[in-house]
């Protein structure tokens, strides 16, 4: 069996994943990156997006929102604000959230509200990442 790397996904609400896996693909700051066993020590910020990992034949997808990840001693740790399994995402709800965010974004653009715009953008990104993750299973 190929060598494995320990994956841990931790959110403020507790650990979500703690498993030995074959490969991890994550949305890094400068683009997606993959991590295999015995990777060099590495630290990167994480964007809102989809994290996938494979374990033998099993492939799992997670929606993660911003945070960072650290690789050291054959262990990869994600510290993110939230993480949801693709299979657990409520697509309808995400769709509705997306529409809401788009509406708010349009409103904010009209009234030139910087603060609301930033928030709506983040919400939109999260909603889109959720939809994408859910469809990617």
């Amino acid at each position, binding site marked *: 069996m190929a060598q494995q790397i320990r994956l841990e996904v*931790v959110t*403020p609400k*507790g650990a979500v994943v703690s498993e030995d896996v074959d490969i991890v693909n994550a949305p890094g*700051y400068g683009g997606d990156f993959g991590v295999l066993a015995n990777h060099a020590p*590495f630290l990167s*910020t994480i964007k809102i997006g989809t994290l996938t990992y494979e374990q033998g034949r099993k492939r799992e997808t997670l929606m993660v929102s*911003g945070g960072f990840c650290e690789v050291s001693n054959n262990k990869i740790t994600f*510290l993110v604000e939230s993480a949801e399994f693709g299979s657990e995402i409520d697509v309808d709800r995400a769709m509705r959230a997306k529409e809401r965010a788009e509406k708010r974004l349009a409103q904010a653009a009209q009234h030139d509200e910087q603060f609301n715009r930033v928030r709506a953008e983040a919400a939109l990104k999260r909603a889109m990442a959720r939809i994408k993750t859910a469809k990617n299973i």
Partner: protein
Amino acid sequence: MPSLKEVKTKIQGVKKTSQITKAMNMVAAAKLRGAQEKMEAFRPYTRKFNEAMSNLSGGATTDQFPLMEKRDVKTVELVVVTSDRGLCGSYNANIVRLALKMIKEYEAAGKKVSVVCVGKKGFQAFNKTGKVRKKFVDIMGTFQMFNAREVASDVADNFLKGNSDKVEVIYGEFKSVAVQAPTFSHFLPVQPVEVVGTETAKKISGDYIYEPSTEEIMDVLQPLYLNVLIYQAMLEVGASEHAARMTAMDNATNACKDIVANLTIVYNKARQASVTNELMDIVGGAEALK
């Protein structure tokens, strides 16, 4: 001697009160469990975060980042985290007292002090002093991360604008269900986290690959770190508030029991006295008829 009826109403009143305090005790116990779970769930996150921060700050110098900048301290900002609700014994009063003590100390040293209140009780205590720069009330019940983010970014902004040179957080630390102590922790400027391990830990940190650069990572990490600190304080305050209320309500229920016991004795004595009086009247009446 109070009249029988008076004592009886009093006993009933105290019993009703003890029902309420007992219910509040149980509610607090249930809420405490929830709050404690949240706190424990958050712990691994904090631990990992501190690890990563210590790894990072091993390579970084302090002056590079605006949030780490050490300035001459002229204005001190205190973030006072209290609960929104009362009826939890001296819990909030203790936090406020610590805050007042610190304000006095800083002012004696010739520094200006401004206060940011998180939680209604703190605001009520500091409203009159005119030192409150900003308040965040009615947010303690929900334990949402974005509440903490709001507080942290506001305080950080103020620091970056140069309106405060040093920020400290005062909150009630949850030591155990029985013990909650007011405490303070350093907030800004961000201090490099001490590397816990020995030389080896430092060696590892030097070899990290950073993406994008150390600076940019720090730019993202530091605000997050502040969030984590505030959120941690809020969680601790939430949990210890319920623990304090539990103890306070337990004491109140016991006090009610004591009062009821005393009043019952008074009531029995009064009843006995009236019985004796009546008997004497009857005997006296019968004696007179002979």
